[in-house]
């Protein structure tokens, strides 16, 4: 018992936390991230890696369903905290720590869960490889949003292979194309992928993947429904989660210049993290935290400048971000995008940092109503890119936290 307990204490000191941000609560999320790193904890990229699920803000219907699903996918020992405002973070994380250490409670939790993984939803349409496990994905199905505890409904069914008991010795020669599509084959309840024409003239399987709303380094509230071939996005459709709910529950104080600058740094940290440059991302995050906490403006300006120079100097970064979805002035007008998004992804990263510096210096040209990024153009921008490139492009759009509108996103 002593050993188990000291093991647990040691384990909890290195907890991994999956953070879910309810749109509008980015300040809370930033505070959570800061506290996590201060404790020596880590951010988890997926529920499979997470011990604690930290929800910033109060999720509404659709997001609540997503959170439930994430919670179901966490291996356990696990703890779940809802954090409504930045000053509650410390207490919430300590509570999570205690919960993780509460062996009896974790054992009870573990016993109450089904051994077998839950079966995926059956209404997902043709999609290989995406059971309930995609985690980040598919929540908008209305049929679904209502019943968070789908386990009970499906848990007892035998999905093992009953759907295709009759297919044992089938004669495939008669089946025209063997595309699986028309056949009623669905091992474990997941229909096999259907194939579609791809850009290389090969008929690759089409997977359906939903990016967001709870994905690391992804703008909160945005959902991008993609059709993938391999990892290339052939079709995408953007929407906001819980669109009607965006009117209330904001972190206050978004207007002032420091917060604007912090927001730019937050976006830059996202983009740098997605580009795989950990040091750069950490630096951007530290600048953000300092901006939110204290106002040593001179030091901040210097740090920001140094980061910008480092970004400019890094040739691997230039190599991997240049020529990535370049936007000309014509493109910007056609898509209705703000002018600071001109150039390729690297230009946009530099302009992001430049805007932060300008905000700090107080010299920002204040536009009364900032130009908006239409939702539809986000989808257009990522079509034809592979998943990684698409993530970089979305991060480079320098989005504001979503506000009350459903059509557009502030930029």
């Amino acid at each position, binding site marked *: 018992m002593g050993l188990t307990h000291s093991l647990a204490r040691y384990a909890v000191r290195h907890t991994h936390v999956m953070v879910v941000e309810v749109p509008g609560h980015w300040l809370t999320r930033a505070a959570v991230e800061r506290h996590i790193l201060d404790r020596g904890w880590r951010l988890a990229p997926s529920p499979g890696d997470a011990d604690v699920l930290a929800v910033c803000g109060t999720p509404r219907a659709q997001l609540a369903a997503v959170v439930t699903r994430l919670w179901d996918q966490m291996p356990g020992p696990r703890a779940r905290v809802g954090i409504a405002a930045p000053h509650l973070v410390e207490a919430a994380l300590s509570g999570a720590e205690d919960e993780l250490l509460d062996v009896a409670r974790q054992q009870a939790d573990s016993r109450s869960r089904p051994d077998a993984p839950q079966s995926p939803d059956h209404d997902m349409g043709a999609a290989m490889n995406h059971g309930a496990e995609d985690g980040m994905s598919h929540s908008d199905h209305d049929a679904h949003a209502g019943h968070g505890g789908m386990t009970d409904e499906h848990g007892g069914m035998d999905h093992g292979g009953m759907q295709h008991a009759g297919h044992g010795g089938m004669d495939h*020669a008669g089946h025209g*194309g063997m595309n699986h599509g028309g056949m009623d084959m669905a091992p474990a309840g997941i229909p096999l992928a259907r194939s579609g024409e791809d850009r290389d003239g*090969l*008929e690759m399987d089409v997977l359906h993947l939903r990016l967001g709303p709870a994905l690391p380094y992804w703008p909160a509230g945005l959902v991008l429904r993609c059709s993938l071939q391999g990892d290339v996005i052939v079709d995408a459709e953007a929407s906001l989660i819980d669109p009607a709910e965006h009117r209330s529950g904001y972190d206050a104080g978004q207007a002032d210049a420091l917060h604007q600058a912090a927001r730019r740094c937050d976006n830059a940290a996202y983009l740098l993290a997605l580009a795989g440059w950990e040091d750069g991302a950490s630096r951007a995050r530290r600048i953000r935290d300092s901006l939110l906490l204290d106002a040593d403006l001179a030091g901040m300006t210097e740090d920001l400048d140094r980061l910008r120079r480092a970004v400019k100097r890094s040739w691997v970064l230039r190599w991997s971000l240049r020529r990535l979805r370049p936007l000309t002035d014509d493109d910007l007008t056609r898509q209705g995008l703000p002018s600071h998004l001109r150039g390729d992804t690297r230009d946009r990263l530099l302009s992001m940092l430049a805007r932060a510096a300008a905000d700090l210096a107080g010299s920002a040209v204040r536009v009364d109503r900032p130009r908006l990024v239409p939702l539809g153009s986000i989808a257009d921008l990522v079509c034809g890119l592979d998943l990684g490139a698409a993530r970089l492009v979305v991060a480079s759009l320098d989005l504001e936290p979503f506000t009350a509108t459903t059509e557009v996103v502030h930029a």
Partner: protein
Amino acid sequence: MTLQTVLLVAAALFSVGLYGALSQQVVVMVMMGLELMLNGLIVAAAGFWWFLAPDPSGQVLLLVIIAAMTVEMAMGFAVATHLHRVRRVDMTDMAADLNG
């Protein structure tokens, strides 16, 4: 480990491969059958070399077998990709039916 036992193992591998090559429908599975037959050949050739004539030139034969396997595999993949592209077909029977 004698020549006879080595050859028995080789024969077993070869026959399993033969069964697969004759019975399977999917192009790739047929290729696997062929590979397994060549696998048996490798064992047999290695056995012959060691137990009958362990001079250097015998090993060259083995290298040739391995090269043949890779060539067969590479061409198999290329042909299968081509078939897939032009006919959406991945089975031998279907390729034959559509022929002409």
